């Protein structure tokens, strides 16, 4: 099967993962099968607690105790690496470092002048100019989240794992950052995995939208978004895809579906 | 109850025979062998029984601690070296020397490591010599130096506790030291040291029995009974030397062979002879001169022979 070296960039193969909570087994992921091509933008949606973060953590190399295989570029993932960046669901800023220090934490650049410059670029990108020397406890929730995004972007990873990166942002800031992420994706050819609860966002950004079902987290369906970019959030096709996803999501609850759409 | 007299002033109004208990501080060292024998045989309890007085034995590892306990009002009768006794009295602790527990000029000595080239106190000039400051070792050292026309300023005097003098001697950190029994005999037996000079002709090495003045004045018979038991122990050592040594060995953790040797060096003679009073005066003068004590002590008043006369 593999005489040709033509495997996908990231291949998640029959991954199962359990947790022990209160001496009982809680299945978190079940038979996850997903192949992502280099440069692809994959959105993941699913209900709270269905295992989205766990999946990202496995790809990031932070969870090693699972069944199945995950390969990146044909090699099994055995730990974290600079080729993958992650924005955690919580911001995880170091409280004793300023915004600039937090952002440059993982920067391999050693020239301090250049370092500062890079940091400044990203601080402006996430709209935090003026807060370079602020400590995390002096930032609002959304500002902290933006620093975390900048920290993940700064090293230009090949694969970027985003766990609800815009969850605490207002609509305007969110849209601006979505544009930035798209710009980076296009210019750097980064592969993206985005977990989000905002289905508009999932469609607007993703090449495909992975819909996960509730415990144990399984892939219910994968919906391709074959729309040209820049996408129009108000277009009819967009609305159709949205409806399809919501239907997957709410299939037990048509009433709610109506509320939303 | 004298037990309540921790805060020291309370045993003041004691009148004859009202003490229910005597707090007796002892040190398990060969200097006080008769007391240890008396303890083993229950002689003190025996002689105090008619007086209806109990004995509370309090053990201390060294004499200065006994002195400290007296100062805190924790003891009625106890034993220690003459130096701690005089220091305590000089600090206004109201005590009296009621008897002598032992003298032994041979039990303290100036020693050097086995292979040292020093053969006489005169060779000490410029050398590192260690002993415990404010102890009778310092007195002997001073006497020995004086006999060769030297003073402390001619040597490098180092203050150390006994146990550390031993380590320092053996590692060669010091050239000589003044040590005393039981360490002296133990090191001698281990062939680790050589004796340059002991106290013979210089200092008798006196250990004393002291009593709280108020207690003694109020309960003279108790003190006398203890002294009598002490004398009985001293006699026992003379008449039954082997048995006596076995009894002492139960209190003192010195190997039996060495213990026998050490005991033989001691002269257990509770009586306070004029000769000893003179010795004590010389010690006192030395201490005053070297600022070991601030206030001088009138030895004639400090020594109280009356409890012997009662016998």
């Amino acid at each position: 099967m593999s005489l040709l070296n033509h495997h996908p960039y990231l291949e998640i193969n029959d991954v199962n993962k359990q947790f022990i909570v209160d001496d009982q087994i809680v299945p978190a992921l079940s038979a996850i099968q997903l192949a992502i091509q280099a440069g692809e933008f994959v959105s993941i949606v699913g209900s709270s607690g269905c295992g989205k973060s766990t999946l990202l953590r496995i790809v990031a190399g932070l969870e090693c105790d699972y069944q199945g295989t995950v390969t990146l570029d044909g090699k099994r993932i055995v730990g974290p690496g600079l080729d993958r960046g992650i924005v955690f669901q919580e911001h995880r800023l170091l409280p004793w470092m300023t915004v600039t220090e937090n952002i440059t934490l993982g920067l391999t650049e050693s020239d301090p002048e250049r370092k500062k410059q890079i940091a400044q670029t990203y601080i402006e990108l996430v709209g935090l100019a003026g807060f370079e020397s602020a400590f995390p406890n002096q930032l609002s929730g959304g500002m902290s989240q933006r620093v975390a995004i900048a920290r993940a972007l700064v090293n230009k990873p090949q694969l970027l794992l985003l766990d609800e990166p815009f969850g605490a942002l207002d609509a305007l800031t969110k849209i601006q950052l979505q544009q930035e992420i798209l710009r980076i994706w296009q210019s750097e050819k980064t592969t993206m995995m985005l977990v989000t609860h905002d289905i508009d966002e999932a469609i607007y950004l993703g090449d495909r939208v992975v819909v996960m079902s509730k415990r144990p987290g399984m892939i219910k369906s994968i919906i391709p978004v074959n729309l040209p970019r820049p996408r129009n959030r108000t277009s009819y096709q967009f609305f159709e895809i949205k409806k399809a996803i919501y239907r997957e999501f709410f299939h037990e609850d048509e009433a709610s579906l109506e509320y939303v759409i | 109850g004298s037990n309540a007299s921790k805060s020291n002033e309370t045993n003041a109004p004691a009148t004859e025979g009202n003490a229910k208990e005597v707090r007796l501080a002892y040190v398990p060292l060969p200097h006080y062998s008769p007391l240890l024998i008396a303890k083993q045989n229950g002689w003190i309890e025996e002689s105090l029984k008619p007086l209806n007085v109990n004995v509370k034995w309090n053990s201390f590892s060294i004499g200065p601690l006994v002195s400290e306990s007296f100062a805190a009002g924790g003891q009625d009768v106890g034993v220690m070296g003459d130096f701690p006794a005089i220091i305590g009295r000089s600090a206004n602790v109201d005590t009296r020397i009621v008897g002598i527990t032992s003298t032994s000029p041979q039990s303290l000595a100036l020693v050097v490591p086995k292979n040292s080239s020093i053969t006489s106190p005169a060779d000490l000039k410029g050398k590192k010599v260690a002993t415990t400051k404010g102890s009778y070792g310092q007195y002997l050292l001073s006497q020995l130096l004086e006999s060769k026309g030297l003073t402390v300023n001619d040597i490098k005097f180092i203050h150390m506790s006994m146990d550390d003098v031993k380590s320092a001697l053996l590692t060669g950190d010091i050239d000589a030291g003044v040590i005393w029994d039981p360490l002296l005999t133990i090191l001698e037996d281990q062939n680790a040291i050589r004796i340059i000079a002991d106290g013979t002709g210089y200092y008798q090495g006196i250990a004393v029995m002291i009593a709280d003045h108020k207690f003694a004045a109020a309960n003279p018979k108790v003190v006398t009974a203890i002294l009598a038991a002490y004398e009985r122990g001293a006699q026992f050592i003379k008449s039954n030397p082997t048995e006596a040594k076995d009894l002492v060995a139960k209190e003192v953790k010195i190997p039996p062979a060495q213990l026998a040797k050490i005991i033989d060096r001691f002269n257990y003679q509770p009586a306070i002879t004029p000769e000893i009073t003179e010795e004590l005066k010389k010690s006192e003068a030395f201490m005053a001169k070297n600022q070991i004590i601030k206030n001088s002590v009138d030895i004639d008043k400090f020594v109280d022979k009356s409890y012997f006369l009662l016998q």
Partner: protein
Amino acid sequence: MSLHLGKGTAPKVRRYPKNNQTFTWQQFILPIVLLIIWQMFFELGLIRSIVLPPPSTVMKTIGELLQNGQLFKHLGFSLIRVLEGFSLAVLFGLTLGIAMGLFRNVYLWLDMLIQVLRPIPPIAWIPLAILWFGIDEMSKIFIIFLGAFFPILINVIEGISQTDHKFVEVAKVLEISRLKFTSKIVLPGALPSIMTGLRVGLGFSWMCVVAAELIAGTEGIGYMIMDARQLAQTDVVLVGMLTIGITGKCFDYMLKALERKLLRWKTTYQGA
């Protein structure tokens, strides 16, 4: 800068594994190697036995002291004293530490006094201990208490001051009682620090046993050591040191086990 974290390895953070504290062979290598070197020094004639007796002699002495019951007798006395002194220190250290950590005023009033008393050596307290508590057990326990009290106190205060202010705000918003605030929010958060205080304090109460048993009496490991020192029985001194060391280690082990039990909820970093 080339040493990288976790590249190609399993994650280095785990919950306290159940077997975390059982003895592993690595722990024993170094002590054994040191013992062998020490013995070799003796065999080669580099150290005289009277200065530092070799492990073989120490072993023999241990055997003797075990046989005649001396070791257990002395250990028993010291054990009880340490337990009493340490328990008191825990009691007072925790109570006062909590009071000082929770109430700014208590802290202000007591801090100066405590900081001045803290560095005063246990030995220097002996005369006062005798004055206040006589020469019996009480004064010994007091000295041991002093050794353990201060590290516990300081660590409790520090632990409390580390209380996450986010949780303080939660407590305020929920208006929970001071009692509940202390027991449910402050203490669990301060627990790692408190446990460190207990461990350091316990170590020091064993240290203070020697000073305490200088006071009077003829029992206890501390007495045994000082007595043996006076009699130049270096082997017995070493046995005493070893006994204190091993007993101390056992106690520490128990405290660590307790800590593990109490901090089940916590993920600790255990190094690579």
